[in-house]
């Protein structure tokens, strides 16, 4: 029996009995420097778990300078693939004095048979490994494990259906009998919903008699979900559509209703109530209080192991609501119709999980009259700062007159940027491309974006200049394809996030894709046929991984109380601190980035620039 750490995957997938089997079946082996542990073509006899030392994976058929294809250190596992394939494709050689635990082939196969999860571990793709890691973290989550994985079907209540010829009186009686807040009306074409508020409005405001048919006062624009969706997706759509209940539809049949209160009863931890607080906030201080609690929400979501994409969606919806509330509180309603506030950059893409800075601008209708505009905008910026959005270091804020303009002024800017093509203009184009309207009249932004696509999407030269920026930072991989390990960590934003985001942005510009989120753009590009589906998924997965690594670092910085001026550091990921599985994932993800860059340079002819 040997004392070996079995807390990391794949061994964490075994139960106590399996672990005991491993402990009893493992041997030890000692390899000297330059000893060959497994030779090319040799039948795999053992799975090796490195206890100490380093092992290189070599392809002896290649010239020496490029033959190194893998590198394993303490805690890593190798040799499993050789067993599954029957023989080893490569040579494993000890780089240092090396101590390995050996799991015999028979035991390995037996474990694979007994534990499907364990077996799966060796047969899985990048996305699969990432999911595993997420699940592992979810186990560590302290509060309400499993909540985030709850489906709508677990929380919905049976619908209260009335025929279309029922009147208001009957509806009130039914509601009272069943202690419900809303009911559904069956009509020939589609179901409608009637809430208590609707009934009151019908009787008091519209002065309908009690005998009015429900079909006349029901609302037919329903917000729907399917029973298999996650519960928090229902929450996202409630927040987005500003409603408090959604209807559950399965195969065009109404099967239930999910009320906000039902969802909230699932959210027993107070951190999930943030979205409700935002919705209920009647003045600035209470909105600020809700807004300052979003990091808490992010923390909780991360602890639950929520897939980052959904967390981003939730946070983007939340941030949008906060912004638009702030807008409502500070700007007079007479201006709402002829102006549009847009958020740009990461916020426009819906990828800003923590409030890192505010990038926003204002579009006015051409005929708008707004005396005291600059004062109002200064006030809006100050309000947002109060709500916890730090000022933008590049001064891309509504308080800056350069980012406030009428539709025709904006179109003029875009024309000028597109023709000058210098670094600053290209950056501004990129920022503008991610713009997303949060308050006011969104059609103004639409017309500006229309102009942007019109000017740029067919201009090959501009696209080439535009795409070049994606190659500006090198991918932190060594010549041999392993991770670089500088002492201060690798910059994940420059090395991983930026190339993906910018490359996808360029393609979206070329293909005139209106979505602003990188994930949506990837979906649209795959739909469009510009990228193949598999590669688009891989890119999305890689982006999610980078964002997650960065987010974890940022959350840690917040809890450590690192001052804001040192946040440059929070983009850095110390490779040495990651577990071997995470390191493996990071390496594969960076390889995907490298591949993507190559495709970009091929498509936009960047080879010689």
């Amino acid at each position: 029996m040997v004392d070996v750490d079995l807390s990391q995957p794949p061994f964490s997938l075994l139960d106590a009995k399996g672990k005991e089997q491993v402990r009893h079946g493992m041997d030890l082996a000692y390899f000297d420097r330059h000893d060959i542990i497994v030779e090319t073509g040799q039948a795999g006899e053992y799975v090796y778990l490195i206890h100490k030392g380093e092992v290189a994976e070599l392809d002896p058929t290649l010239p020496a300078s490029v033959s190194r294809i893998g590198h394993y250190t303490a805690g890593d596992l190798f040799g499993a693939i050789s067993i599954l394939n029957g023989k080893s494709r490569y040579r494993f050689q000890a780089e240092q004095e090396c101590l390995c635990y050996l799991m015999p082939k028979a035991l390995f196969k037996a474990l694979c048979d007994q534990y499907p999860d364990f077996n799966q571990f060796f047969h899985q793709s990048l996305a699969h490994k990432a999911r595993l890691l997420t699940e592992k973290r979810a186990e560590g989550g302290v509060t309400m494990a499993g909540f985030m994985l709850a489906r709508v079907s677990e929380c919905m209540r049976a619908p209260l259906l009335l025929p279309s010829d029922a009147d208001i009186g009957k509806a009130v009686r039914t509601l009272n009998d069943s202690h419900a807040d809303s009911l559904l009306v069956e009509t020939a074409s589609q179901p409608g919903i009637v809430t208590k508020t609707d009934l009151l409005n019908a009787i008091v405001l519209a002065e309908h008699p009690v005998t009015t048919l429900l079909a006349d006062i029901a609302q037919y624009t329903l917000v729907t979900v399917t029973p298999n969706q996650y519960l928090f997706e229902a929450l996202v759509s409630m927040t987005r559509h500003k409603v408090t209940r959604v209807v559950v539809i399965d195969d065009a049949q109404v099967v239930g209703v999910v009320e906000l209160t039902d969802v909230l009863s699932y959210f027993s931890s107070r951190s999930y109530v943030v979205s409700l607080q935002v919705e209920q906030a009647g003045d600035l201080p209470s909105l600020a209080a809700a807004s300052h609690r979003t990091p808490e929400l992010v923390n909780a979501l991360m602890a639950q192991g929520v897939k980052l994409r959904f967390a981003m969606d939730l946070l983007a919806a939340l941030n949008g609501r906060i912004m638009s509330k702030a807008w409502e509180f500070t700007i007079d309603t007479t201006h709402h119709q002829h102006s549009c506030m847009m958020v740009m950059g990461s916020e426009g893409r819906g990828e800003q999980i923590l409030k890192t800075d505010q990038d926003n601008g204002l579009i006015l209708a051409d005929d708008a009259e707004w005396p005291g505009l600059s004062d109002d905008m200064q006030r809006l910026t100050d309000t947002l700062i109060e709500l916890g959005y730090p000022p933008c270091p590049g001064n891309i804020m509504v308080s800056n007159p350069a980012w406030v303009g009428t539709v025709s002024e904006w179109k003029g800017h875009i024309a000028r940027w597109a023709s000058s093509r210098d670094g600053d203009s290209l950056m501004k184009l990129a920022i503008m491309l991610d713009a997303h309207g949060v308050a006011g009249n969104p059609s103004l932004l639409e017309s500006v974006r229309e102009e942007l696509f019109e000017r740029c999407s067919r201009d090959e030269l501009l696209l080439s200049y535009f795409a070049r920026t994606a190659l500006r930072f090198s991918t932190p991989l060594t010549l041999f394809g392993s991770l670089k390990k500088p002492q201060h960590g690798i910059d994940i934003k420059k090395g991983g996030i930026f190339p993906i985001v910018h490359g996808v942005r360029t393609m979206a510009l070329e293909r005139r894709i209106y979505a602003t989120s990188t994930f949506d753009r990837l979906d649209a590009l795959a739909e469009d046929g510009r990228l193949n589906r598999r590669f688009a998924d891989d890119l999305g997965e890689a982006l999610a991984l980078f964002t997650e690594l960065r987010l974890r670092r940022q959350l840690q910085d917040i809890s450590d109380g690192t001052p804001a001026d040192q946040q440059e550091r929070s983009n850095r990921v110390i490779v040495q601190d990651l577990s071997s599985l995470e390191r493996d994932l990071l390496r594969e993800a960076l390889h995907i980035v490298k591949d993507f860059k190559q495709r970009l340079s091929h498509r936009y002819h960047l080879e010689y620039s």
Partner: protein
Amino acid sequence: MISRHALDAPLGWLGSMLRRGSERRRYAASPYAWLFQPYLGNELVALSCFAHHGVISVAAVTLRQHQILTSGAWVAALSNTASGSAAAERRHQLLYSVDTTLPLNIESLRSLIEFIGNRPILGWQLEQRLAPLEQQLRRHLGFGLPNARVDVTKLHQRYLRRLHPQAEQQAELACALRCWQVPSAAPQRALEDATASALLYLHLRRDADQVV
């Protein structure tokens, strides 16, 4: 039988050689004869042995070239029913993490020497630690372990002296492991002790190859 003390004290190596010779001749026709044959393979057996209060914890693990076959190790506490107590057995189980307890009789000793066979044995402070086991072997079977021996302590001290003539000699296995930077967990336990001494042997042998 030749008295142990008479020959061991002044000329230990000569005494044990003579005794081994006489035992080989005496057991030439017995089922144990093969144990006295010279070994020609490339395996060794790392042995560790702790004895207190009538209980002997023994761990034997095979060392084949660079592999230590921990999965096939022979680990047991041999309890002398006459003088050993339940408390001593328990103490051994806890202290040296030995799960199986066998009665100290011919069968269990035979299974141990069958496991070791005629392979050379190695261990830390081999002579001192094996003494109680040898004593029991002689009592029950009539002969001591006839195998060739490698005392890792002596190896360690020789290499250390060669590198640092002034260095203080330490008799702790943990110190030696630290000194040569051999990773090992808890050499306190019986099996880990045997494994650690085998690792130390592998490490030192490598140094020897480099010196030559």
